[in-house]
């Protein structure tokens, strides 16, 4: 187990370095003049340019800038925007909202997705099964922005059931509808994954053993079929939590939620490179960490991996 953990940790390092370097290079390295358009119509005053060049290490080659940036990251310094805000402050305000939204989406995925998958697997070749399968295909085909716009229009504007935008610091309940929209795609994947996995395990030898032991159907389904079938589902959901935090740009846009996605978008419109890099790097770190945790969790859930 210890060796396994270490291995996964070591594998994450080159990925972290590669991703951050790529982003840093895209955002800083490819712009010829970082000060273009920063000070309205006029060119920026030389003193300002000098100050910023020094603060952002713009005089160095990109690779050195990147290394210095990484150094800062280790002390929790995500850099500072041209307008003087600490990027870490911006993140501290926005991240909890994105996190809440992602959690709402994941909970919806788990509750609805797994239930639908289980029902459809247990019913096998019935109307309910076909209905669930087709609904999942439909959800997979709906781009999130279409779902978002339609839900907002129909339930918000025409029926008036929900508010079309969310307050500045929304609680979990106010995030329910956006969470549903955000989680809809993964919900469909979870349902299908649960179904496939359960159908395979239903025919497994160990399920036959469990039946031969005289256990009740309920016990066989829950403890033997479902418990074993959830392994891949857990992995998927875990990984999804990582990508939902950053994947919510569209949903956040549709419902005016001030999360991390909005921060990136705003950063690009205002040409605040530090803001963009900061948030994206944070999301990559979260993604890698979540993946690591999921891998370890998988090892805990599946004893066959643990002792290799």
């Amino acid at each position, binding site marked *: 187990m210890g060796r396994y953990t270490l291995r996964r940790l070591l594998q994450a390092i080159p990925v972290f370095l590669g991703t951050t370097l790529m982003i840093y290079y895209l955002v800083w390295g490819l712009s010829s003049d970082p000060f273009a358009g920063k000070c309205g119509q006029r060119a920026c005053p030389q003193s300002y340019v000098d100050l910023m060049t020094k603060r952002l290490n713009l005089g160095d080659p990109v690779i050195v800038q990147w290394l210095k940036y990484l150094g800062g990251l280790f002390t929790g310094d995500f850099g500072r925007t041209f307008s003087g805000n600490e990027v870490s402050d911006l993140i501290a305000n926005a991240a909890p909202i994105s996190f809440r939204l992602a959690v709402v989406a994941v909970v919806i995925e788990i509750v609805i997705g797994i239930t639908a998958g289980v029902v459809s697997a247990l019913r096998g070749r019935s109307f309910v099964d076909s209905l669930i399968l087709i609904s999942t295909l439909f959800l997979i085909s709906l781009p999130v922005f279409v779902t978002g716009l339609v839900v907002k229009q129909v339930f918000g504007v025409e029926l008036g059931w929900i508010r079309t935008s969310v307050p500045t610091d929304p609680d979990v309940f106010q995030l329910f509808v956006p969470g549903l929209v955000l989680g809809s795609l993964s919900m469909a994947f979870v349902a299908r994954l649960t179904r496939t996995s359960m159908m395979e395990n239903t025919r497994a*030898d*160990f399920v036959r053993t*469990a*039946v031969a*032991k005289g256990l009740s159907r309920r016990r066989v389904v829950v*403890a*033997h079929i479902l418990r*074993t079938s959830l392994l891949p589902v857990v992995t998927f959901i875990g990984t999804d939590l990582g990508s939902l935090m950053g994947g919510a740009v569209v949903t956040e846009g549709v419902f005016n939620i001030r999360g991390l996605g909005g921060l990136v978008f705003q950063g690009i419109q205002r040409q605040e490179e530090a803001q963009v890099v900061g948030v994206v790097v944070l999301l990559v770190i979260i993604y890698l960490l979540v993946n690591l945790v999921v891998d370890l969790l998988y090892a805990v859930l599946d004893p*066959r991996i643990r*002792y290799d």
Partner: protein
Amino acid sequence: MTETAAAPLLEVSDLRVEFGNPRHGDVASVLNGVSYQVSAGETLAVLGESGSGKSVTAQTVMGILDTPPGRITGGSVRFKGEELLGADPERRRLLRGESMAMIFQDALSALNPVYTVGAQIAEQFRFRRGMSRKDAMVKAAELLDLVKIPNAAQRVREYPHQFSGGMRQRAMIAMSLALDPELLIADEPTTALDVTVQAQIMELLDELCRERTMGMILITHDLGVVAEVADRIAVMYAGRIVEEADAASLYAHPAHPYTRGLMASVPRLDGGGGQLDPIPGLPPSLSAIPPGCPFHPRCAHAEDRCRSELPSLRALDDPDATGDDHRAACHFAERFVGASPEEVLTP
């Protein structure tokens, strides 16, 4: 439960099972009237080529046949006189484990990989006996000890993949004994194991049956194993019992050409017997069983009667057999029953 004094422990008669969908016309008649009996404390060995329906019979008895694709089309299965086919599913469930238990061939896939061996044994104590998790684990360890797994107290907390093949099969056996069944069905319990381990497992099973006067149905390909532990032997071919006798008389006077073929196709333990003769040809397709005796296309002694008339399983006059115990389904069984198994009969 009404227990008639004469009723054997298990009585299967004229059992018929089909697979496939009749509407698509692809029906395979897998069991075509299987009958056998097992008494308390008796070991019945079931022999037969792959695909002859040994496992399907066992699954039907246990009530774990997959329906669909399988379909029971006739016959009866009585346990201590109680008819099981068509019985309430909950009643059947309560009989499983408690009255009859089953051991499978491939213990690795038959054990759930995500639970410890102990937890899987303890499950029956918890959910059938209402024991606490802790007490159940203690019982599980006792059972592992009973099947001679060294260091059982620690081993209960290990997972199936940490066990060796032989230990896994021992764990399966422990699991099947948990609720003290009266009938144990062992479906090729040693096929996946190497020879030395096979012998140990068979010895263990034999010992346990004797101690507990438990009836056992032992499904196997291994005639050597059969000779050592079986009280009676039933030979299956294409979903029927073609010969049944106490072990000694079946070995001494095999009365069905198929049985004789089976014996000729394995080396004898005592080194006796002539050359090895595998039975020519293949078993019939179960969706197109030939008319008459299903064995006739492969039988060197087949005559016209065999091609048209299905022989029934009838008692033979075998001087060595106890009672009228020797039965065979061959029109000419009398011709063979007198001859020793090594004798090469010319048609």
